[in-house]
């Protein structure tokens, strides 16, 4: 598999928030940081999540070099190096970067890296009842998009 990421078919998001709770559970997070979240506006729902950008603006913005992109394409924060300046929070075009008040550190989606190492998909992508969350590489996504266009997925 090539570089991996999440992809949300946003139109199919129906605002159940299951992805949020699956993520909280997987990362043992309390109230505060929401590494994936859904914003509601009437009957429209907008999933906010990390795209693991190739030229990640968060990475570019970080003055401490705390953000890296690993060989699989996963954009990660080294919390040892993070200085809590929140430049990444401001830089992320999706609003996906989170800040943990208690520790004073930035925090982000790590694509469930522990699960990936065991060949398991990210927690959020498994629970979605409309299957609007896809996980994979560019090949997987284009296959899925083509299938959807043909009404098969």
């Amino acid at each position, binding site marked *: 598999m090539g570089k991996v990421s999440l992809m949300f078919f946003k139109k199919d998001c129906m*605002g159940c928030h299951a992805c949020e709770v699956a993520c909280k559970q997987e990362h043992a997070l309390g109230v505060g940081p929401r590494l994936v979240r859904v914003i509601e506006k009437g009957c429209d729902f907008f999933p906010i999540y990390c795209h693991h950008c190739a030229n990640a603006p968060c990475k570019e913005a970080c003055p401490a070099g705390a953000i890296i992109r690993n060989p699989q394409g996963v954009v990660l924060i080294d919390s040892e190096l993070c200085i809590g300046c929140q430049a990444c929070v401001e830089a992320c075009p999706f609003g996906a970067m989170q800040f943990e008040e208690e520790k004073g550190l930035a925090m982000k989606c790590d694509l469930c890296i522990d699960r990936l190492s065991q060949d398991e998909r990210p927690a959020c992508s498994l629970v979605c*009842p*409309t299957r609007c969350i896809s996980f994979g590489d560019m090949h997987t996504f284009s296959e899925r998009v083509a299938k959807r266009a043909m009404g098969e997925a």
Partner: protein
Amino acid sequence: MGEIKKIRTACRNCHGGCGVIATVSDGKVIKVEGDPESPISYGTLCSKGLAVTQMAYHPDRILHPMKKVNGQWERISWDEALDTVATKFKEVIAAHGPEAIVIGQGTGRDYESHLYRFANMLGTPNVLTAGHMCYVSRVASTLITCGNLPICDYRGEPKLIVMWACNPQWTNPDEYKGVDFWKAYKKGAKLICIDPRKGFVAKRAHLWLQLRPGTDAALAMGFHRVIMEEELFDREFTAQYIHGWEAFRERVMKDYPLERVEEITWVDKDLIRQAARLYATTKPACIHWGVPTEQTNNCTDFTRTATGLMAATGNLDAPGGNVLYVNPPTRTVAEFARHKELSLEQRAKRLGGEQYKLGARVAFITPKVAWESILEGKPYQLKAGLLCGTNPVITRDGAREAYAALQALDFLVAIDFFLTPTAELADIFLPAGTWLEQNHVADNWKRHGFVVARQKCVEIGEAWQDHKIFMELGKRMGQQWWDTVEESLDYLLEPAGVTWEEFKKIGWLQGEMVYHKYKERGFSTPTRKVELWSTTLEKWGFDPLPKYVELPESPVSTPELLERYPYILNAGLRTPTFFHSANRQQPWLREIRPDPIVEIHPETARKHGIQDGDWVYIESPRGRVKERAKLYDGINPQVVVAEHGWWYPEIKDPGHGWDISNINILMDNAHRTMDPAMGATNIRNCLCSIARVED
């Protein structure tokens, strides 16, 4: 870290059934995930189920029995607790008869078999459930109409789905988990949505009928009208298998011209025509309907009229239509509960039984008669009660009356996880186990053709699964039970030819589906036909044909109230993170929805100087509560939509803020507002005013 185990089980955060894999480490559940092998949820799991560890291990959870002494809770042993309850119940029975004890539960939680068995063997006909206005009412209405509850056959690939007052992906979907609906829709099924509020389903629908809240029965009549006028009905089926088709047709043609239906429902008559045509001409088509249709004075008649639509179009028990599923051959709830053993003499004493005959037929009472019995002693006085997994102070119509009655009851036992506003009124508290702490044959009461294994993952504190509580209390009352819960499950599973130990390993059983069963043996009604003319209701003295009766409080029936209360309150909005009054304690869920929400149209809000996020008083002739405004143009400007189920566990006094945002305080619980045959309360609709809460 010690041994890590993965246990396959089934959720019960709503009515449940979704497949779960629980990870257990050192005797503690550390994670739950959807079970991809589940035949009904396919690996998906909702926010409520995923947050179960925050419920099971919540610091506020009560993990030992307690008694109240001088207004303070004191820890006691199970022996003392059960002995106290048994002694008190025996005293009440000796002095007043078993009917003076009311046994109650809330929404369906897979222990009705045990709860009813306990009540029946006790000899009390007074079982107080949510059934009068939720699901069981649907079952009761369809039992007398076509013999069973006709379920959307998503597996049979419907070409059209009518989603009627239901949002199965957001909230508890009863038989279905939403995924099956979504699959059918994605395969290209057309979608008609009937909802006063533009939600996700309405947005996706080919046709959206935005009706005046609570007028569903009139709209269903409108569908019939079109189908009759345009002769779109199934001639063979209506001639052979419907009892009263001609009489019903006469009524629809006389009383429900589309102009009148439009006037009642606010839905454009051409749109009704288009929708009815689409439903009648697309085969197969199914109707998936939800609880708001039942929570009105038209409870029984909506369901009967909708069943009539399925029948008239030949979609009843047809693949992809609405079908009567065949369940696996386990013992039914009715058989396990020994309903037949409640004597005729005791049945005759069922509170409200003479009045609400259809409710009585399915063995529940409407709450009003319980409150009247307690507060006014009529026709006799309830002296003691046992409430399991229910919070009527928050969830029942006329909340102040419910609170006053439960406060006045001589002796009350609560079985729950937390000290809810209702449990705080009890004398004895018995700690129940969550679904992680129980063995059970889940979904045994549902009509989707499956039963699934809910397997115990852990034991926490001294909590017992509800089933065990009924067993052990029952034995103290001299009733016949088994030694262990698992033995009772063996009995339940016996006709299916498996033991609990075997079933646990198999995970689930499926009944063998047969369509068009009526061709062999007719429908299970007195005439063996679909009874649009109900011989049962006729025998009891009710109108045998369905009709629409105007809502008890509305711009039509009480125009004199409009000046003071100009808006229609559409109460009881469900959200995906909460199930009725549950889950407000769980940080993951509360973070997503911190406050109760009232939806107000932006134009309406502007008139009252209300901005998004303001706290707003909602007032009816019966009281006032506050919720937080969310401006939303997906509703009619004359309609206000409010969430239900709110109390505040973080408020530590015993009321836990039960009267701050409890929308049921606004509702009228008078007999005249109820469904005359069922006793369903009109809990979704009344008139209201709104005002910004000034700081």
